[in-house]
């Protein structure tokens, strides 16, 4: 396998014929060598007295051996893989497969027991799993040596910045079971890189966060680059709301709370700049800062609205420490 990574693209070429041939030659060439040496020393000379006899005993087997190896080499084909920041392109012989990199959730290795049975080393298939849980076999079950597979999987994931996590049934090449990351369970909808329209504005989605609530449907938060600034949009029940962050100390001072108030003691009602806000919803769940998260991030949220229902405050407690207050 030839693997090369530059700043702009990753490319790999796999010559299946060469791989197959190398493994067969490794197994059989010593046998052929030993056989030839012994033949020369043990078989009486009269066998080789004419070239026809010599060819029959040594030439024909050698021709058959190298001929069949050459046929194997030519019939196995090649695969090419090319990945840029936008697209992954895989070519297996004449068949092609393209996928935008934003849709890729993870690469993983699947044990190929058929190919392993006849091999000295474990063989694996490189699988691709998308954010909408579709699975693709990158090389149509041709069986890569496990170490090559791991190198390719890791290099692709590093190139794209995808966190490596355990997929059920994954073959572990280097051991140390990968962590089972928590995956986002709302893969559909807006994704990073798409253009999002909200009100009279529109922009490119830079980041997507998700709140998986225990008792209600998940909410999402987007960072959208409009060209002028970074807009923070909170998506709740299919509606987008533009938010801005409020300094916690200034907020607590404005509302008259003590500065070191604990989460449990936050009141259900408060005044902020002569407006009354009351608690509408209190939820808890898990926060996902990207598609998959290494560790569970507990999150609690208190949702306050004013009487006209046109402004809100969202007070969020992340991992039982960081409080963040957003105003819509």
């Amino acid at each position, binding site marked *: 396998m030839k693997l090369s990574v530059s700043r702009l693209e990753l490319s790999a070429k796999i010559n299946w014929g060469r791989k197959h041939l190398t493994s067969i030659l490794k197994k059989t060439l010593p046998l052929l060598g030993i*056989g030839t040496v012994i033949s020369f020393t043990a078989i009486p000379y009269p066998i080789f007295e004419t070239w026809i006899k010599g060819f029959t005993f040594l030439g024909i087997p050698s021709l058959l051996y190298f001929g069949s190896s050459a046929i194997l080499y030519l019939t196995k084909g090649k695969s090419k893989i090319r990945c840029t*920041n936008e697209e992954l392109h895989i070519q297996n012989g004449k068949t092609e497969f393209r996928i935008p990199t934003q849709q890729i959730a993870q690469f993983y290795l699947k044990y190929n027991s058929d190919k392993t049975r006849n091999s000295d080393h474990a063989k694996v298939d490189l699988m691709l799993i998308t954010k909408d849980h579709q699975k693709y076999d990158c090389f149509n079950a041709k069986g890569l040596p496990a170490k090559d597979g791991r190198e390719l999987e890791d290099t692709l994931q590093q190139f794209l*910045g995808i966190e490596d996590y355990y997929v059920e049934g994954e073959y572990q090449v280097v*051991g*140390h*079971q990968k962590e089972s990351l928590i995956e986002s369970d709302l893969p559909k909808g807006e994704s990073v890189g798409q253009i999002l329209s909200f009100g009279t504005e529109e922009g490119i989605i830079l980041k997507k966060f998700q709140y998986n609530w225990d008792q209600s449907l998940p909410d999402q938060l987007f960072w959208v680059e409009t060209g002028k600034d970074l807009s923070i949009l909170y998506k709740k029940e299919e509606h987008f709301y533009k938010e801005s962050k409020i300094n916690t100390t200034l907020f607590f001072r404005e509302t008259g709370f003590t500065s070191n108030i604990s989460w449990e003691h936050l009141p259900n009602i408060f005044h902020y700049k002569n407006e009354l806000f009351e608690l509408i919803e209190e939820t808890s769940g898990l926060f996902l800062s990207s598609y998959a998260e290494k560790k569970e991030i507990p999150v609690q949220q208190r949702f306050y609205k004013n009487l006209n229902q046109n402004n809100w405050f969202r007070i969020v407690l*992340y991992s039982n420490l960081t409080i963040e207050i957003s105003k819509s």
Partner: protein
Amino acid sequence: MNIIETRNGGYLFTIKGKLSKPLQEEYKRKIGNEDKKGELFLFIFSFVATFPLTLSNPELLFLIPTAFITYFLGKRYYLKNKEDTIRIVISEDSFAINIIFDDDRYSKHFDPENIEQLYIRRVELNKYCLCAITKYPFRQQIALITGNEDKLAELVDLKNQIHEYFNIQEDELEGEITYQQAELPKRKRQYFNLFHQDINDIRLNSVIHLKGDDHHITKINQLDWNNGMVSYQFMLETEEALFYHSSPAERLLFLEKEMTDSSEIGLNPYQTELDKFEKILYYESTNFYQSEQNKGKLFEGKKLTHNNVLQLLYEDEEKKRFLRVFILGSGIKVMLGEVIEEHQLQEILPEVE
């Protein structure tokens, strides 16, 4: 190593490796006789099949022993280098090692109750062995699977999984090999964007065009916070650093410099408890209001250097100046920063090779 959960609630581990020598010998003794029978049959068959030919060409008689010597030498060489497919099946009341070689099967059963624990020891310079210690009829060590350094991690996994399944309490043994996986920071993409550049395009040894000047990045520190967000500190060739901080509702970029004397802002340099810090700090006629508290891990490059880092972020009312109080172990550092507008970071050039 491949892991499959079986229907009876157990696990099947498939690993490519070599059985230990005692088990190999036991396996050979068991299947040896059947093996020889097959080879004897092959020898007689080839002799009978080629006999009519040898009548006309008596020299051909030499070919048969030649072929057999070649076969045995070749097989010996092949077996020496071949890794076996070893299957370890564990279920509630059984722990078995199975090996399939061509059509031969060999199985070694252990009573899980009889296993005190498993452990890994080094047998040669680059050879490790997974061993089991059994309790009765007398306490003894049985070597199970051997492998080189490449297999070590898989053997450790196998040992841990079996211990976990049978709830075996592990004691540290003399000569035991311990193997720990290094903790890595959250990944960032490796590809470089020529257009629409962002903070992920700044690499070690790259050059950034900041506020009209070119700066060389000499070091990168990464902070992985418990809330899933990441901050980067890009050290410049001057004593300053470009600090990127993100929280779900905001991202900040400021140019910061360490304050030599933290008592100037009224901080006790030995204070390490977050709740005891003032919410408002006063420095150079400006009030700084605490906006965030963070806890996380500090990585210098890809190496974890501090497991428990605390940070307090303060900002002035206009959100133009920042104070970052950074608690590392027993000491604190205070950084004074000034916000960088996005247009002030104009160009990022790739790292110098």
